[in-house]
């Protein structure tokens, strides 16, 4: 690329990043100091005497810390068991343990509520069994939020720790044993320190997700969290105060993003020895075997239940769940109506089309940014990097809030249109939120791609654009496709940002439709849409694996 084209591309990307990502956030900051005095609303935010508004920060932090602890314990425990020991059904367990990833954000939490909440299946069964009040067994409030967080966020720990265990090699432990270390010393001095980077990044991810969590506090009626305070302050037309909460949430998220990037850059222990798979310890003792089997059986059921609940509800007749443990009447009508009734089909189509539009934009922006950051040197690279990753760190609530307050007036970036209330605002929000996913995935592929391969193409006489089309793009394809599919799936499940955008009912995507029907008590209709989300997620997971296995073939 010649210098002029390079400057042009950089300028265009900088403009997009400013217009849709950084600018709206700066706007929110400006609005946060428009109170009686510039700091008036910040003082209120940090003042416990102002009720839940003053407690929100502490509430969010407390929930996040607790979520990190509970998810961490479960995630690390499962990773160690499944990576280090061999026992019957281990492979099945390895698949099932990732089921929470397939849980759609809103419908998943709703399933938890119907399972464990007031009037839910489990409390009713337990209550009936002991002949006491079922509601005394119901999980509510903080406990409910923690339950959802734990069961949806432990994969952060499980995945990072499993990967670390997979990469570590036996010779290290053997070296420790050969030097006379006991099993305890080996774990304490060799294995746990090796896992620390994985555990820390798992913890940072969990913390960020908990801070951003909106659906679980909403459905379990916990209002002393920052995400919900943004919404309620916004509903009360307290613009400055809701901006303050957004800014504070952004500050926390961005500092964690920076922490995470620092941490990722600094500490990854790689095994230096080559080849040789990891050996697993085979469990032979029958008692231990039985214990491990029992644990895995129970946890499997526990993990499957929410998904199973969505399916059960999808086949239940709307309004047929009154006071029993489960709905009383079942039908296939909910599923059939998805494809026959245009009112039921519309949200599916909306979600797919909106996500697809967003993904197209995200691929353009994400791939360009990854290429520019990976292959060019220019001033302000770090700022560029932070800008593109920013929406990944920001809670969906904050992203949506920033966009609404920016595009409720005509703006150059919306070509002079008011976007709030239109169809366009939803794909725009998805585009902003999910561009970082494509960026990250592409950047990872690009960092694996030796720059000399592109130079080879240039030396053979091909122009920059020919080399990019024939060599770079095909080699990046697995990374781009994986990122795009991930972005698409996130779009299909998106709820947190969408709910703030106040779309016209005609344009409502799946999660909003589910939300509406769920609150009308039409669990069957809502869950049928939930099933669609689950199926789409699974389809995409399979597709992604296809794409990635293609990718590994291509790696030299």
């Amino acid at each position, binding site marked *: 690329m010649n210098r002029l084209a390079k400057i042009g591309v950089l300028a265009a990307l900088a403009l997009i990043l400013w217009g849709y990502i950084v600018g709206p956030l700066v706007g929110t900051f400006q609005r946060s100091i428009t109170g009686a005095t510039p700091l008036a609303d910040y003082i209120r935010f940090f003042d416990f005497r102002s009720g839940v508004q003053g407690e929100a920060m502490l509430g969010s932090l407390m929930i996040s810390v607790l979520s990190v602890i509970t998810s961490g314990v479960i995630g690390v425990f499962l990773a160690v068991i499944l990576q280090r020991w061999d026992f019957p059904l281990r492979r099945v367990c390895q698949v099932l343990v990732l089921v929470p990833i397939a849980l759609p954000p809103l419908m998943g939490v709703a399933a938890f509520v119907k399972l464990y909440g007031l009037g839910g299946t489990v409390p009713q069964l337990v209550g009936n069994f002991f002949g006491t009040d079922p509601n005394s067994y119901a999980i509510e409030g903080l406990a409910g939020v923690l339950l959802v967080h734990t069961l949806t966020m432990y994969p952060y720990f499980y995945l990072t720790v499993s990967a670390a265990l997979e990469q570590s090699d036996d010779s290290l432990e053997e070296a420790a044993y050969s030097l006379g270390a006991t099993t305890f010393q080996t774990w304490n001095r060799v294995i746990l320190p090796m896992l620390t980077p994985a555990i820390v990044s798992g913890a940072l991810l969990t913390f960020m997700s908990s801070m951003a969590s909106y659906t679980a506090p909403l459905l379990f009626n916990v209002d002393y969290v920052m995400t919900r305070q943004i919404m309620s302050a916004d509903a009360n037309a307290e613009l400055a105060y809701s901006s303050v909460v957004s800014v504070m949430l952004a500050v926390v998220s961005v500092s964690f993003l920076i922490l995470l990037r620092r941490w990722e850059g600094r500490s990854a222990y790689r095994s230096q020895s080559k080849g040789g798979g990891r050996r697993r310890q085979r469990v032979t003792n029958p008692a231990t075997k039985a214990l491990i089997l029992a644990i895995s059986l129970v946890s499997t059921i526990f993990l499957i239940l929410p998904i199973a609940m969505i399916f059960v509800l999808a086949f239940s007749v709307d309004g047929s769940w009154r006071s029993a443990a489960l709905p009383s009447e079942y039908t296939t009508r909910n599923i059939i109506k998805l494809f026959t009734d245009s009112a039921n089909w519309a949200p599916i189509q909306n979600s797919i089309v909106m996500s697809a539009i967003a993904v197209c934009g995200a691929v353009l922006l994400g791939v360009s940014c990854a290429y520019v950051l990976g292959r060019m040197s220019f001033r302000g690279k770090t700022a560029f990097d932070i800008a593109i990753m920013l929406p990944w760190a920001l809670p969906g609530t904050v992203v949506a809030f920033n966009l609404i307050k920016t595009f409720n007036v005509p703006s150059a970036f919306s070509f002079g249109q008011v976007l709030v209330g239109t169809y366009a605002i939803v794909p725009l929000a998805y585009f902003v939120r999910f561009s970082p996913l494509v960026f990250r995935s592409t950047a990872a592929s690009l960092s694996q791609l030796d720059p000399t391969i592109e*130079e080879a193409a240039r*030396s053979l006489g091909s122009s920059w654009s020919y080399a990019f089309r024939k060599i770079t793009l095909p080699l990046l394809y697995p990374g781009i496709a994986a990122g795009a599919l991930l972005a698409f799936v996130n779009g299909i499940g998106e709820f947190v940002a969408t709910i703030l955008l106040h779309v016209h009912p005609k344009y409502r995507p799946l999660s909003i439709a589910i939300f509406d029907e769920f609150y009308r008590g039409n669990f069957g209709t809502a869950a049928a849409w939930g099933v669609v989300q689950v199926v789409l997620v699974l389809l995409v997971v399979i597709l992604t694996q296809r794409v990635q296995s293609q990718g590994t073939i291509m790696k030299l």
Partner: protein
Amino acid sequence: MTVLTLEKLTKVFPRAGRVVDSIDLRIESGEFFTLLGPSGCGKSTILRMVAGFEEPTDGRILFDRRDVTTEPPNRRSIGFVFQNYALFPHLSVAENVVFGLRVKKVPRAEAEKRVAEALNDVQLAGLGPERVDRLSGGQQQRVALARALVIRPSLLLLDEPLSNLDAKLREDTRAMLRALRSSNSPTTVYVTHDQAEAMGMSDRVAVLNQGKIHQVATPEEIYEHPATRFVADFIGRNNVIDATVSAVSEKTVTVRFRDGIEVTMDPANRARGVLLTPGARVGVCVRAESMRLAAGNGTFSGIVTDVEYAGPLRTCRVQTSVGDLQVEVPSSAGRLVKGQSVGLSVIESALHLVEPAATT
């Protein structure tokens, strides 16, 4: 005819600093020219600037008489072979080789013929449909070579092409590269840190250190008449001993070592810039193979501190009054053991003078 001219070529990197420092070089048509130097001497950076992958900070690059300093690599008509092969992993062997011909829109039939020929030249005939990751390292490097040669570049640039291969394969590939040299083969610039490669294949060699050229000459000239102390040290096994010129005549020069020992040698065997006035400090190069075990007292005498057996010869370290000397002794000369006292006689015709060590 001069094919490639470098004029005051300079490259400054923000962190590494002045990696290439005002290099002047002319490479003639059909030549096999090698840039030799330790890692970090700037040789690869020079090659990458010639290819157009790096932009010079200063200076000019001319192909024939055409200034290509700011031309992109695809307009330079070069072939480049990378240390790590840089094959296109998603293409087959034949697709890799044909890539440059497709870019140039060579008709299909001719392209196929040329690909077959190129694969034949590098002894990979029949492997065209193979996936590149199925090939061994040596085969991959030969695909890279075929890919660069098939476009008939006017300049072939090789960046340490053998350094990822094991010793045996390196020798085979070297033989193949020599075999490929013919009257119509392209002018070649070869970058390596391995002096055996440089000496064994090149018409001329440039020895570089810290971004500067120390000597440009034929391999023989570089080995026998190193232009600087660095070249003397870097090439072969050389003992460079500080000494003082004690007497000069028309045909001979006598130098005195630190301990008073004197040797007499031919004054023509000296690097340019070495002053031959009595009292001048010089560095005397005594090659490890230009010393013999003396029956009695030789020029030097000392104690063997280390012996390394290497088949036809033994390499010893001998502690003498002028310092530690490396000596190569034919194995046929008999056993040597650590601690043994030996006398060493110097073959005076093989001595060479370079500048003295920089005084610190």
